[in-house]
């Protein structure tokens, strides 16, 4: 879908992106992560030509991005940024309709699309359609920002720290919504963040950048279990790397049919290992009951098993 081929971009002789080669397949959720000045935002803006690269090539659907008309290219890629960038003088409806209007969609089709997107983000269209951005909470503004990026149903969604300015609770809710939207739509998403937990939660592929160079590319599990070097290990958080690893594992493979004590606390079978360990530590027990989707206790997990690699699955 998108391919960087040895792409570089300098500002005043300093390489912001240095020989980046990266292939992003259709339907992937790629997270570019790195500290400030690592070139992650620059790399993102090279894709929709908000910035021009100096050398190398970038392909979109197999063709050089410079073979597209720049406006057409941008209209085929949704774009959402941290400070939202909603038009303050337009209603929510008109903001979302920006790209469809540029593409000349019919009124009725636009109306329908706005309703669809607001519903997708759990915002009642009857209430929010005619609101102005300043009448929304930060989380709602960001939802509208993402809805606007999705409006013309672009194949690619580019997001630059979209949840950076939100409080932790709202951010977590929006991250889950984003995950749901990605799973439901199969869109290719490229997201820039400096929040490692966000990257581990959302990404199918994490790209760690440092001073314009790729340090490691891999799935969240690969990153946690085999960090390429000290930089990555530090960035992940050396001390609680294991804890983060636990949050990527489901509790299911560790469940045995042996019953737990009748008064032992229990967790859902869909929980992560991290949640199970947390629950044990909080309750001060070494064995937990496990509930199935009906809420019936069907087995148990042992503290000693949880830290070992999974036996199956």
């Amino acid at each position, binding site marked *: 879908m998108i391919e960087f081929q040895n792409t570089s971009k300098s500002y005043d002789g300093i390489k912001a992106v240095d020989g980046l080669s990266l292939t992003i397949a259709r339907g992937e959720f790629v997270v570019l992560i790195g500290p400030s000045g690592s070139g992650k935002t620059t790399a993102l803006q090279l894709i929709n030509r908000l910035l021009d690269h100096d050398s190398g090539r970038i392909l979109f659907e197999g063709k050089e991005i410079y073979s597209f008309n720049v406006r057409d290219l941008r209209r085929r890629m949704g774009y959402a*940024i941290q400070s939202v960038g*909603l*038009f*303050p003088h337009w209603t929510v409806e008109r903001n979302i309709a920006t790209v469809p209007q*540029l593409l000349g969609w019919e009124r009725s089709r636009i109306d329908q699309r706005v309703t669809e997107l607001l519903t997708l983000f759990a915002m009642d269209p009857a209430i929010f359609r005619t609101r102005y951005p300043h009448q929304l909470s930060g989380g709602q503004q960001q939802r509208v920002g993402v809805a606007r990026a999705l409006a013309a149903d672009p194949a690619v969604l580019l997001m630059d720290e979209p949840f950076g300015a939100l409080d932790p609770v709202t951010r977590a809710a929006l991250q889950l919504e984003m995950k749901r939207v990605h799973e439901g739509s199969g869109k290719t998403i490229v997201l820039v963040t400096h929040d490692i937990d966000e990257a581990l939660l959302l990404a199918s592929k994490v790209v760690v950048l440092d001073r314009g160079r790729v340090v490691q590319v891999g799935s969240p599990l690969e990153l946690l279990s085999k960090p390429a070097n000290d930089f990555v290990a530090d960035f992940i958080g050396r001390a609680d790397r294991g804890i983060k690893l636990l949050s990527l594992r489901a509790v299911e493979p560790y469940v045995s049919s042996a019953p737990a004590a009748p008064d032992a606390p229990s967790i859902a079978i869909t929980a992560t290992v991290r949640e199970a360990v947390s629950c044990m530590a909080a309750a001060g027990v070494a064995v937990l009951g496990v509930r199935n989707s009906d809420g019936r206790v069907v087995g148990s997990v042992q503290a000693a098993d949880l830290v070992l690699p999974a036996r199956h699955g």
Partner: protein
Amino acid sequence: MRDGNDVGFNPVLALINVLGLGAAMALPLLRVAPNRLVSGDPVYLAELLQTSLGDLFPGGWVVFMVAAMAAAIFGSTRRWVHWGVVGIAAAWMATLVWLAGYHASAIALTESPLARTALGAGFWTLIALSWLLCLDAVDRLQIGFLSRMVLLASVVVPMAIVVGRGYGDELSIMKEYANRSDVFASAVLRHLQIVATAIVPTVLVGLPLAWAAYRHARVRSLLFPFLNLVQTIPSIALFGLFMAPLAWMAASYPVLGRAGIRGVGLAPAVLALFLYSLLPVVRSAVAGLQQVPGAVKTAARGMGMGAVTIFWRVEVPLALPVLLLGLRAAVVQTIGLAAVTALVGAGGLGSLMFEGLFSGANELVLLGVVPIVVLAVLADGVFKALSAVLKGPAA
């Protein structure tokens, strides 16, 4: 003070009333002179109430208004009290005009036809204080902007009715008006013409200039020192500066002369006013464009809007409220400055004012000045209303 004022004591109202009482006692409401060129003898409000009008004019009405004011000062903060203050202030303004006019009629019957009854300092002070009363009360009502404008406009209606029905005709200022009624209307129109011919080019030239200054720092660094310099030149000096070159141009190129470009008259006046109003318009337009958030512009670009679309659909609408502030300042400033253009023969209300000044007829000066003030207040109100309408949904 506007919120949580439970005590009910209104210090603003109290102060205005004390000042009003002082003005009514210490300053003459009217001056009666045997002819228009001498200064005349003072007549105070108390005299008017006692002597000439004692039985005719219901003195009780004045007593009632004073008592009502006192009640309002210490009264509750309920909304109807504020409405009452607005009503009384409006009635008070009309009453003042009526009183003055009535006395002038009495003088006209008893004295020579040359005798003049001029409005004194007391009259103007009391009118101004009444207006302040209205502003304060309307402010306390906390109503929407447009309702506020309508209410303030309707406050002057009773006074206008009193004048319109001829009760003030024997007052000196109205006599001057009667003498000049033929030129008065054309002076107002001429004044508006001067303002319009200065402001329209300001907007047409100023907005592209602002756009250039916004895009290019170099233009900005050259333009603003020049415009600031222009502001520091006194208006009469600026008119003088243009007179010689324009006269020369008209003499050298008769085509220009036939088109109305001359060393005196409209041309130097409008040119100077144009330059003066350029600074507020350009500065506010640039400020307006600069305060458009960068994120909004980046987002617009990122979604595939072209530069032209971004300018007209995003930057201009978002800059407009700030631009309107500058345009409002420019228009109000030009209405005032246009009075001075009478000195270079441009005409307008300034010519009435200067004629009065040079012949020592104060009332004629007022006949020129009062409409200028009214025009400026009206223009100010129109622009404020326009901003309020624009801001309405997105505020």
